[in-house]
C-alpha cells in the first residue's frame, strides 16, 4: 500500500506543482522611428502563442539617456531594434541573450564573431542597410534619371556609417553621381538642415542608417520638403511617412524572422550558435504623392518594379 502511494505521489505532485514565474522578453526601442519593428516582432512572437512568456516593450522615446533604463536585469531575453539599442543592452552587462531586429553592419559592431557562428550573447536579423545604401542610390538614379547630385545625411561615430558611406561612394562613382555630406551627430544638428539643403545645388537627399535620423525623421522630411528635395529613406515605413523612395527589408518580415529566432532561444537553443540572418525580403517602395508635390517625373518602369507605391 505504501508503494502504491509512492507510485501515485508523482502524479499528485505534478498536479500540485506551482507554475514557474513568467519569463520576460523585453523589446528595447530607442524611439518612434523604430517602433514599427518592435510591433512587428511582438506580433510575430505572439503568433507562436508561447506559454509562460511575458512580452514587454521599453520605449526610450527618442532620448538616448532614457535607453539605459530599459536594461534593468531580469528578462530572459532582450530584443533590440537597432544598433544603439543593442549596444546599450550589451554594455549594461547582463547575461541574458540578445536578439536584434534590423541591426546594420553586424560584424562591425563586434558583437558577433561571424555571421554563421556569432559566438557571443547576441544574434538576430541584420537588415543589410549599410550595404544597401549604394543600391538605394542606384534605384534613385533609375527612378529620377536627371538626379546628378545627392546629399548624404549620416550620423558620425555610428558603427554602420563607414560601411554605408563606402557603399554610397562606390555606387556614386559607378553611377556618375556627385555626393554632398551632411553629418548629424545629435538632433540639434538638424536645425540647419533645411537651410543647408536649400542653399546647395543637390537634387536629392539620401539617409544612412542612424538612430538620430530615424527617430527624428519628421524633421528631416520637413527640411527636405522645404528644400524641395526628394528623400531616399531606408524602408517602406519611411516612404509612408513622406520619403520618396526606399529600398529595404520589410519590417513585418524581419519581425517574423526575429520572433522565430527568439522562440528557439527561449526553447533553449544557444544564441551563440544561432547564425545571423539576412532579411527574407528586400522591397522597393515609392511615394508618388511626394513625387507629385515636388514635381518629379518618375520613370514608370521603376514604378513597375516597386513592391509598394504610395500615391
Amino acid at each position, binding site marked *: 500500500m505504501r508503494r502504491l502511494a509512492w507510485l*501515485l505521489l508523482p502524479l499528485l505532485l505534478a498536479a500540485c506543482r506551482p507554475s514557474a514565474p513568467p519569463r520576460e522578453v523585453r523589446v528595447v526601442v530607442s524611439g518612434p522611428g523604430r517602433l514599427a519593428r518592435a510591433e512587428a516582432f511582438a506580433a510575430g512572437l505572439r503568433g507562436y502563442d508561447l506559454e509562460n512568456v511575458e512580452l514587454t516593450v521599453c520605449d526610450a522615446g527618442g532620448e538616448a539617456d532614457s535607453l539605459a533604463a530599459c536594461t534593468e536585469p531580469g528578462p530572459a531575453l532582450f530584443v533590440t531594434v537597432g544598433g544603439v539599442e543593442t549596444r546599450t543592452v550589451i554594455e549594461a552587462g547582463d547575461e541574458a541573450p540578445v536578439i536584434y531586429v534590423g541591426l546594420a553592419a553586424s560584424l562591425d559592431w563586434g558583437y558577433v564573431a561571424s555571421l*554563421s557562428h556569432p559566438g557571443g550573447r547576441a544574434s538576430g536579423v541584420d537588415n543589410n542597410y549599410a550595404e544597401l545604401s549604394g543600391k538605394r542610390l542606384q534605384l534613385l538614379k533609375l527612378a529620377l534619371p536627371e538626379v546628378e547630385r545627392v546629399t548624404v545625411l549620416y550620423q558620425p561615430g555610428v558603427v554602420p556609417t563607414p560601411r554605408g558611406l563606402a557603399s554610397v561612394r562606390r555606387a556614386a562613382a559607378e553611377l556618375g553621381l556627385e555626393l554632398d555630406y551632411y553629418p548629424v551627430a545629435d538632433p540639434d544638428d538638424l536645425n540647419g538642415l533645411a537651410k543647408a539643403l536649400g542653399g546647395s545645388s543637390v537634387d536629392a537627399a539620401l539617409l544612412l542608417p542612424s538612430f538620430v535620423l530615424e527617430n527624428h525623421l519628421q524633421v528631416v522630411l520637413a527640411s527636405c520638403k522645404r528644400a524641395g528635395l526628394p528623400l531616399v529613406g531606408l524602408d517602406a515605413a519611411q516612404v509612408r511617412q513622406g520619403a520618396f523612395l526606399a529600398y529595404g527589408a520589410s519590417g513585418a518580415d524581419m519581425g517574423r524572422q526575429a520572433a522565430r529566432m527568439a522562440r528557439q532561444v527561449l526553447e533553449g537553443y544557444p544564441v551563440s550558435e544561432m547564425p545571423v540572418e539576412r532579411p527574407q*525580403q528586400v522591397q522597393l517602395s515609392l511615394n508618388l504623392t511626394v513625387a507629385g508635390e515636388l514635381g518629379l517625373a518618375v520613370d514608370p518602369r521603376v514604378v513597375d518594379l516597386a513592391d509598394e507605391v504610395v500615391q
Partner: protein
Amino acid sequence: MKGWLSRLEGRFTLAAAAAGVLPLLLVGAVAWYGLSRSYLNLAGARIESEAAHLQGSLDGRLETLVGVLGQTLDAPGDEVWALRYAAARLPEVVELRVRDDAKVLATWSRFEVTPQPLEPLARPGEREVWGPVWRDDWGEPQLTLGLARASSRFLEAQLRAPVLWDALVELRDPTLHAFLTDAGGRYLASSDRLEVLRGAAAPAAVLGGEAGRVFRYRDDAGIEKLAVVRPVERLGGLLVVEAPVQTLLAPLSRSLLVLLASVLLAMAASFWPGWRLARAVTRPLDELARGAGELEQGSLETPLAESGPPEARSAVRAFNRMAAELERNRSELEDYALHLEERVAERAEALRLARDRALEADRAKTRFLASVSHELRTPLASIKGFASTLLATDVAWKPEEAAEFLRIIESEADRMHRLVSDLLDRARGERGEFSVTPLMQDAVRLLREMEPRLRRLARGRPLQVVAPGGPLCVPLDAERIRSVLANLVENAVRYSPKGSPVTVGLTASPAEVRFSVSDAGSGVPAGMEEKVFEPFFRAAESGGGTGLGLAIAKAIVEAHGGRIGLERGGGATVFWFALPRGECDDVAGADS
C-alpha cells in the same frame, strides 16, 4: 522485498489485485498496440499527403521560376530591365545575368550595384542546368541555374534557397517537419532555418529511405521518426517530410495515459477497502497460524487478538479457550507430577492410620469381648457358686443363710441384666438406632425428684444438689436423662476417695441447660478425656462397672441434641452434659 512478497504469497489480496490489473494491462497493451498502429497509419497518410502537397508546390515554384527566367531570356529589347522585372517577381533571386557567346548583355543584383560576375553555367543544347549549391557569408545555400536558348543566349541565376522554400505554401500541419536536401544530402531549405544555416547534413538513414513510401527511421540523436521521402529531380535532392513517432502518438498517449491514470486511481481507491476487507479475513487466520505454531512449540504466551468479522472473532475465541484449557491441563499434569510423591506419602499415612484404627478397633473388640466375658463370667461364677452351694446335699443351710445366698444370686443376676441391657443400648447407639422420646420437662423438678435416688447411689457420701429455684424447661426423655445422671453419680462414687463429697449441679444459659457431677477424685489421666466416652474404657481396672456407662450416656445426650464433656481443675473432676432449652408452655409431669 523478498520477505514482503513472501508475506503476500498466497494472499488473495495479491490475487485480487493481479486479477484486476493483469487483464487491464493486457487490454491496455492490446489497445495501445492496435490504436497506435492505426494512429501511425493515419499519420503516415497525413505525412504522405503533406509531402505530395509540398512537392507539388515546390515543383510548381521551380517551374514558375524557370518559366519567368526563360521569358526574361526570350524577351526582346532591353535585357537589363527584363532582368529587373524578373527579380522583382522572384524574391529568391540574388543575381541575374544574360549573356551570349561573346559577352555579358546585362546583369542585375538585388543587393549590389555592380555584382560579382557569375560563373558560366548555361551550356548550348541544355535548356536548363542546375549547378552546384554554394553558401554565402551568411551560410545561406545558394542555388545556381543556367538557361540556354538555341539563339545562343544564356541566362545564369543565383537564387536564395531558403527564400525559395519560404515562397512555398506553409506546412498545414505544424507537428510535421519538412526539409529539402541538395544532391549531397545537406539541408538546402527547411522548416527549421537553423539546420540550413548551420550547413548540416540530413541523417543518412532518412536519405536511404524508399521514395514515396512511409517508413520509420532513427535519427542521429536516436529519435524514432516516421518519414516520407520524395525526389526533387530538378535539384537532384530530396524532399523529406517527417515527424517524431512520439510526437505523432502524443494525443493518443495523453488520452490513454489519462484513461490509465483514471483507472489506476479508481483501482487504488477501491484497493484500499478491498485490502482492508481481505486483511480483516487473513489477519485472524495469520493469528491462528501463529497461535498454532506457538502451541506446537510449547505454550501460547498471549491470547490471540480478536479481529475481523464475527465468524473470525468466534474462531479466535474458541482457539483461545482451547489453548487456555490445554494450558490448564498441562499445568495440572505438571503439578500432579510434582506432588505425586507427597500424595503417595499422604495416602500411605492415611492407610497407616486406617490400619492403626482397624487394629485399635480389633483390639477394642478383643478387649470388649474380654470385658464382656469377664463381666458375664464373674456374676455367673458367683451365681453358679451360690446356687451349687444351696443345692449341695451335704450341707443344710439355715434359711437366713440361704436367703443371703439367694439375694447374692439375685444381685448378680441384676448385674448381668444391667450389663446385657447396657450392651444392647450401646449396640443401638452405634447403629444409630438409639431412640429417645423427649417431652418438655422441668429440669429442676426432675433433679429434685431424683435427689433421693442419687443419695442412695452416693452410698453414704455427702451429696449436694445445687439447682436454681425456677423451672428450666428442656425437651428430654426423663428416664434416659435419669440414667445418665445416675451413671455419672455412680462413676463419681466409684472413682473418688471414700467419704469425699459429690456435687450435682444444674445451671442454665439462654440456649441450654447444663447438668454437672463433680467429685474429688483423681480423675481421668491427661490425654484420655475423649477416650472415657469410648466403650469399655476404664480409668482403673478396679471399681466395677461395665465400662459402657459413659459411652451410653454420650449416646443419650447426643440423641437429645446435646453435648457431654469432662473438665478437671482445682482437685476436682467434673462430668457435665448440656441440653438445648425449650419453652415451658407444655411441661409434663416428672413421672409421666
